[in-house]
């Protein structure tokens, strides 16, 4: 039975060498099913993110906005973080009304209009 840390290290190694991500994903899924560790997927991915950041300086961020982000906006967002390489995943959620919510590993910046209006309503700081 491999520990999560060992598994994450192994996946990281494979990511360095593999070119076919679908094939890699199938392998990992099969292994997890075999080990009955499918519930660990979230934790594995988070640890993988952390490993990549520490070893390669690669940071993956998720930006959620109400409208599509312009290039300038993306640049402004990326400029917040200090990493060798920043990979941005974009999502759109019209319910945010405006602004953007950026999540990076264990940090977040929530500048969405919806959250700020929510704070106004609840009186929260």
């Amino acid at each position, binding site marked *: 039975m491999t520990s999560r840390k060992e598994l994450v290290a192994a996946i990281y190694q494979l990511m360095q060498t593999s070119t076919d991500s679908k094939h890699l994903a199938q392998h990992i899924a099969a292994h997890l099913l075999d080990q009955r560790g499918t519930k660990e997927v*979230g*934790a594995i991915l*988070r*640890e993988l993110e952390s490993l990549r950041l520490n070893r390669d300086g690669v940071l993956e961020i998720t930006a959620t906005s109400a409208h599509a982000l312009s290039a300038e906006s993306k640049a402004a967002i990326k400029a*917040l973080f200090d990493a060798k390489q920043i990979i941005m995943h974009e999502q759109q959620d019209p319910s945010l009304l405006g602004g953007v919510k950026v*999540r990076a*590993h*264990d*940090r*977040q*910046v*929530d*500048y969405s209009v919806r959250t*700020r209006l*929510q*704070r*106004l*309503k*609840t*009186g*929260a*700081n």
Partner: protein
Amino acid sequence: MATQDLTIKELGADIRAAIEKLKTRPEIEEAGIVTRIGDGVAWIYGLRNAGYNEMIDIETTEGGKVTAFALNLGDDEIGAVLLGDERLVKAGANAHLTGRIMEVPVGPELVGRVVDPLGNPLDDKGPVKASHMSPVERPAPGVLDRKSVHEPLMTGLMAIDTMVPIGRGQRELIIGDRQTGKTAIAVDTMINQHRQQTGVINIYVAIGQKLSKVARLVERLKREGVMDQTIVVATSAADPASLQYLAPYAATSMGEYFRDNKQHALVIYDDLSKHAAAYRQMSLLLRRPPGREAYPGDVFYLHSRLLERSAKMSDENGAGSLTALPIIETQAGDISAYIPTNVISITDGQIFMETNLFYQGIRPAISVGLSVSRVGGSAQTKAVKSVAGNLRLSLAQFRELAAFAQFSTDLDTETKQRIERGQRLTELLKQPQYSPLGVWEQTALLLTANEGVFDGISIEQIKPVQAALLSELHKQHKKDMEKLNQGDKPDDKLKETILKAAQNVVKSYEPKAEKVKA
């Protein structure tokens, strides 16, 4: 302009200020994600800078928040115990650190209120507007900040005040099986603080009790006029284990406010067995390794850090005190079980309640042999001390002989006398509920009993004679009794007065001798 006048201008200013606050620039904040939730525990990924017992706000889908506090700080996730409704929290919710540890409102504004461990009111008297907040967990005062216990805390129960005296700043455990009168002792002690106008603030903590019992108790306290100097911190069996776990700590913080402000407080934990069970539940759900009887390994520390906060402060620190009366429920009288032995070793003595004494009609059902006060005479009023010296010994001798007497009919005079005296003392020490006795009453009764004045009357007449004697002394020698109530040792003249009054009362109760025919 009167403060009660609400102007649109003021309201508008407040609203504008609230909006302005939102114009602040965005901040990068540490955020965690709830990975799973269940049984009152949220497991959170992230928040690497979380401190032990730090409060965490978890966002709900409606935009509100639920508070939790971090108890398990693991490598990759944090176990946080929820203080609110777990149904509002979903997996994937964001969690933020607050930078604060668990705090409760403290201060004189809480006196007379019934609250939960978070300071929320449970009576219908509106929100508690306390001026101070205090952390739930605080370090106990050090050795140099304390003074030895020397002031008495009178319970009003003769059996306790004479043989197992309690002092201010002491921890005295009340231990016994269910339905043996443990809570009754605590309630009578609270009532006595009011009757004797001692100024001691009572704090009663109900941990996992039936709410009907708490309601009855509050009603009784109101009827006796004690509620005006009492705080009730209540958690029921239906409350989450986290609240039951916090209750005694929150109550102790409330008591510490008075202790540190030159006042005296009495805190009653009813009961710590349920507290240990709630902590066991939380620890098992947090996946901490179980030890003996499935309790976690730090269950001793759970109670020791709680009870060490009850202390008598030195004069430099205000000379205040916090006295603790923890209650432990045993099963089948087994005081050698895990939790009872833990708490016995922490406290400064115990009052052991026996079931068979209770059913024999000896109430309070205190086992004189197994009960002890490690503070002893230093915490006893001089008046009571002067008459209580031989009581324990007399009762111990009586107990030895009573068993022997059942099997033997030929007893010598001395043995018979000891048995008679012991029976009378036992009868004298019985006391009805909600009827605490003052210093002068206890002193007068014991003095009379020691001098053998009651030896001539039957046991069934002890109580009527007691009532008659106290009534007589109160009517005829009120000033002397008020002086005796101050606590000083009675002088010979006063003793004589009491004995004379007793002899007069006893005369009318003595069995009449047959007239000799001329």
